[in-house]
Structures are given as C-alpha cells and as structure tokens.
C-alpha cells in the first residue's frame, strides 16, 4: 500500500470516530457565526487560527497569544482548550510514531523531519482523552512511510553529521524548503538549478544535495499528512476540482523540483472552501491521467466581478503516490 492509500485509510478511520464529530463541531463554532443564534461571534478566532497553517496547533497558538494581537480575539473555554490540546497531542504522536525506531540512520534527524519543530509554543497539560484513529491504521501509515524513496535515500547513503551541526542542518533544511516554496510551483530557484546542472558529476555534492533534499521532502510529506489529518477532522470530503468547476488550466508544468499546476476555477460547493495549504483532489481526466491526483494548494487569488462572475485562481504542487510535491528533486 503506498502512502497515499494509507493516509486515505487513516483519514477514513478518523472520520468514523465520535470524537471527530465533536472536534468538527467545536472548530466550526470558531469559524462561522449564525445571526439570531444568541451566541457570541467567534469566527475571528478561527479566521486567524487557520492563517497560521499549523492545523490544530494554530488554534492553541491564537489562544496563547490573544492578548498580544492587535484585533480583539474572542475567548475559548478551558474545556475547549483541553480538547484542542488533546487533539494536537495526537498530531504530535502521529509525527513521532512515523519516525520513531524505523531506522537508526533516521534517528538523528527525527526533529528535522517533524514539521512542528521550530514552532515556539508553551506546552499545556491536559487530562482530556480524544480518540481519533485506531492503532492499526497508524501502523499501516508508518509501514508505508518506511518505504518512502526519500527515506530510503537517507538509509542507503547516510552522511556523517556531527551532533553539534544538527541545529545548523535544521535551519538549512527549513531555508531550503522556504526557498522552493517562495519561488513558486512553476519555477526553480537559481541556486538549486546550479547544483542540479553543474554539480551532478561531483559525487560528494550530489550526495549532500540528495540528503538535504530528502530531509526537506520528508518534512514536507509529514506536513501534508498532518494537513490531511486536519482536513479529515473538519470536513467530510476533499475539495474536488473537476469538469464541473474548472474553467481552464493556465499552467501545467514539470521542472527539476516537481509538478506545478495553476488553474482557474469557479467558486462552487466543491471549491469555495479551498484555502492555501489545503490538499485538494484533481480529476485525472483534466490531467490526462488514469487516476485522480492530489494537489497541495500554495496560493489562491479571487476575482469577484459583476461582469465576469466569481472565480479563483489556484496554484498548487501536484503530489505523487508518496505524497511528495518535490518528486523530481532527488538526483
């Protein structure tokens, strides 16, 4: 079973739990407001939390920093905070379980691969218990993760990195990822192009590049797993881009990092809730492939016009079967 199949199995398990419904209701109460409901409008809380792009952790951070924010942020109750903390603990547990003890070559880099490392927040104790998945599906997810090509690359060719240099490595991986994301889905940063085309023959440079790339890929894949986990909690289905809402494909490119897609879509019931960092499903027919493809949304820009209707331009990385957006990065 590849990683995509495993994560679908995992998310299906999440959605079948009662606690999923409980969390979904809580999150919705912080993201929408009904007039005449007699309740306080707390949608501002959810709006800011979503813009942290850190899934459940975003809600905890907003709570912890609400006094520092310029706009007035509504309160959440202790009970609600407990639920968020308990759920976030499950996210941390998933991240750790995927990498704990899978190979000694990976052990030094577990923190780098964890997408929540480098996020500063004050841990909160909680006695609440949330059940969102069975151990079997988590086990299957880990088994699939263990066969990820990026992981295998590190295991087969582990570099020797001094322990003291690990913090530097962490910063470099984070910078590398940021460089790729900032240049957009259709472009390759100059610095990476240089290595890919001029340094290929240099085995040492190539190995080092692959190592950093693998860590970046694994960190990103973990981010995507967390995002899919989060989307499973808050909604029933992935947003689906298909012939019913696609106006045009503006750009569909493949470069030495991965595959990028920019498409113009109307705003309808399948596509109106899409936000940056979301994972969406694209109809395979639109990409001339046999099966549907996952996309990781990077940017959305809306056009709301009386003369031309309401459209959104969505830019995304396409994911392969191993949830990898940077599928061409390894040399």
């Amino acid at each position, binding site marked *: 079973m590849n990683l995509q199949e495993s994560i679908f199995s995992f998310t299906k398990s999440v959605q079948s739990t009662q606690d999923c419904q409980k969390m979904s209701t809580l999150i919705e109460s912080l993201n929408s407001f009904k007039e005449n409901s007699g309740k306080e409008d707390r949608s501002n809380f959810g709006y800011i939390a979503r813009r942290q792009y850190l899934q459940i952790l975003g809600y905890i951070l907003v709570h912890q920093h609400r006094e520092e924010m310029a706009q007035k942020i509504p309160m959440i109750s202790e009970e609600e905070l407990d639920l968020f903390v308990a759920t976030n603990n499950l996210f941390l547990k998933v991240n750790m379980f995927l990498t704990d003890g899978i190979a000694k070559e990976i052990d030094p880099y577990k923190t780098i691969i964890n997408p929540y490392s480098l996020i500063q927040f004050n841990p909160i104790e909680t006695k609440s218990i949330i059940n969102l998945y069975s151990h079997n599906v988590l086990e299957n997810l880990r088994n699939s993760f263990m066969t990820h090509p990026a992981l295998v690359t590190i295991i087969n060719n582990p570099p020797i990195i001094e322990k003291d240099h690990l913090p530097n490595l962490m910063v470099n991986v984070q910078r590398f990822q940021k460089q790729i994301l900032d240049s957009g889905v259709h472009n390759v940063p100059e610095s990476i192009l240089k290595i890919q085309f001029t340094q290929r023959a240099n085995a040492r440079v190539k190995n080092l590049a692959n190592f950093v790339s693998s860590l970046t890929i694994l960190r990103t894949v973990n981010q995507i797993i967390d995002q899919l986990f989060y989307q499973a909690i808050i909604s029933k289905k992935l947003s689906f881009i298909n012939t*019913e809402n696609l106006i045009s494909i*503006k750009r569909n490119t493949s470069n030495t990092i991965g595959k990028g897609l920019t498409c*113009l879509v109307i705003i*309808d019931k399948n596509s109106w809730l899409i936000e940056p960092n979301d994972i969406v499903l694209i109809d395979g027919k639109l990409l001339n492939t046999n099966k549907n493809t996952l996309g990781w949304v990077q940017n959305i820009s809306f056009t709301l016009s009386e003369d031309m209707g309401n459209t959104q331009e969505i830019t995304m990385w396409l994911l392969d079967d191993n949830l990898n957006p940077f599928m061409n990065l390894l040399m």
Partner: protein
Amino acid sequence: MNIQKIVTEDPIKSQWLQLSNFMYPSNIERFAIEQKYPLPNDLTKAYISGCIKQSQAYFESAKNSPLDIKPLLVYYGTVCLLSGTLALVNGKIPEIKNHGMYLSQIDDQLANISIATKDTKNGALQLFSNTFLPGLVFSNISPLKFQDILSFIPEIRSDFLSCYREAQPHTISVQIVNKAKVTFERISLSEVTRFQEIEKTIMSIEGYKECYISPQLTKAFIILYRKNTHHEIGTYSVFGKKYFSLPIKNNGKNISVNSIIGFFMGLFTLSTLCRYHPEKWHPFVTNDTTGERLLVDIFISNAVRSIPNLVLNYIYKSNIQFIFHDDQSTNLSLPIYEDEIKEIVNELLQKGN
C-alpha cells in the same frame, strides 16, 4: 462554425449574387464534386437552377409589393429556394407533394392562429426539416400557435417582445466575452425578465450540461463558463449574434424550430391567410390596431433579408456575414484588464524570488 465576412453596401444584392452561382449547371456540378454531395443529373441541375432563379424573382417582386400579397410572394420564393437547396445537397429532385401543414384554427388575432402538421413523408415542412433541422419529427405533434413559431426566430426577437408583452420568447441572446486567456459567455438579466427559474431553464437547454459549468448569477448577468468538453451549442443570427434556443413542450416532446423552419412556417401562415382568407387578411392589413401588422411587416422584411443568408450558411457550412464596413488596418494591440496586470506582476515577483 467559421465566420466569413463579405464587405458590401447591399447585403441582399450580394446574397443573391452568391446564390446565382447555382443558376449555372457547371457550377452546380463543380460544387457537388467539391463538397462530396451526390452528383445531380441534368434534370436535377435544371431543377436547381430554375428554383434559384424563380426564388430570386419572387423575392424581387415582393420588394415593391403591398402587404396584401407580399407574404405569398415571399413564401413562394422561400419554397423555391429551399427546394432547390434540397436538390443541391441530395443530388435529386425532392418529392414534395404538399406544404406539410395547414391552418387548423383561424383567429382574429394572428398570435392565436394554429398551424397543424400533416404528411410527414412527402410534406414540404418535414422534408425541409430533415435537411435544415435534422432530428425534428412533426408526427404526433399538437398544432403550434403562430406566436410560438415567431418566438423561435432570434432575428425578430426584440420586435416580438414589443408586440406580445406577455409572451415568453424561446430564444435567449448570449454575449461572447473574450479575455486574453479565457473565453466565456454571459446573458444579460434584462434579456430574461419573462422567464421563471432562469438558472434551471438555462441548464435544461439541450447540450448545456456537457458544455458549460453551472451558471453564476451576478447583479447584471448570468455568467456561463465553458467546460473543457465544450462544443458549440446554440445558433447564430445572420447578424452574427449568438442565441440559445429553448424548446416548447408539445405532447410530451420538446419542440424547437430554427430560423429557417420558423420563417417557413410563419410565411405559410401569412400566405394562407392572404390567399385563402382575404376576409381576414384585408381588414388586418388596413385596420389593425393591435400592433401585429408592424410585427408582420418586420417579420417579412427579416425573412427577405435572412432566408437567403441562412441558406448560404447551410450550403457553405459557414456563418456568412454581409457587413457594411471592414476596418482595413490590423490592430495588434491587446486590451488588458486589472486582474491580468496583477497576474503578470505576481509572476514577475515570484521569478525575482
């Protein structure tokens, strides 16, 4: 369908110049070979040339004739033209034995006159429909009202709406909007004030769901974005404007006629009144106070202008537009919109990163 523009100061004269090609047997033969139509024999060629020549003569005569007899002349001209075209594309003389329709109910108000169909084997109406509107079978159809027939003709849409204030048209005009990277269509809300549940109505148009995404309603328009499986649906008037056609429910069937058949049926109605019911026609021509006479005038003028053009469009599988003026300069500048500027700036910024 591709667009062919012919610059002329007299569209009617130019149309007939084009059609007069088919008054010559050698041109008929060459055309049939080029288009891979069945090759007509000498008798059929004579039939075709005779029909086209007579048609032109009838249309010419109608120009200066009073309304008392004008519909009859235009109707005969139309029958000749359509029969000749049938023979041209089929390679044989059509076996037309009657009009294929009759007036089943005559009323003082033209709108309420009913047209019933008959003889779907050898009647002109069915035989013409088989060529110009394939798929429409007139058997088991209840009589259609004259008003309904007119409601299908886009060329007289605005005059129809002015005359019949409560009637629902069965065409909707569509604007095509071309932007740099996408083409979409839209319908002005002012065009659809007489429709109930307009979004549902649009989605029920044959072929709509295959070709367009669900319509979006704004304050001024209904926006229609094309799917990537889009193919052309709808029709174009002789003036190049696009329309969707909406069917009428008739005996459980969806009936919709195009301009050629609509003009043909409408002209039959008026010419029958004119020829066989002068006791109705004469008072109408001299004393009408309802405004229908004006609509009839406009209908016949449009028939004279449009029918030869529609036939040429059919023959040449093209949207032929006779235009008065063509700008001879080539404009290479492109209009650019705010959202396109933003897109270009975003792309440049990303590349800069």
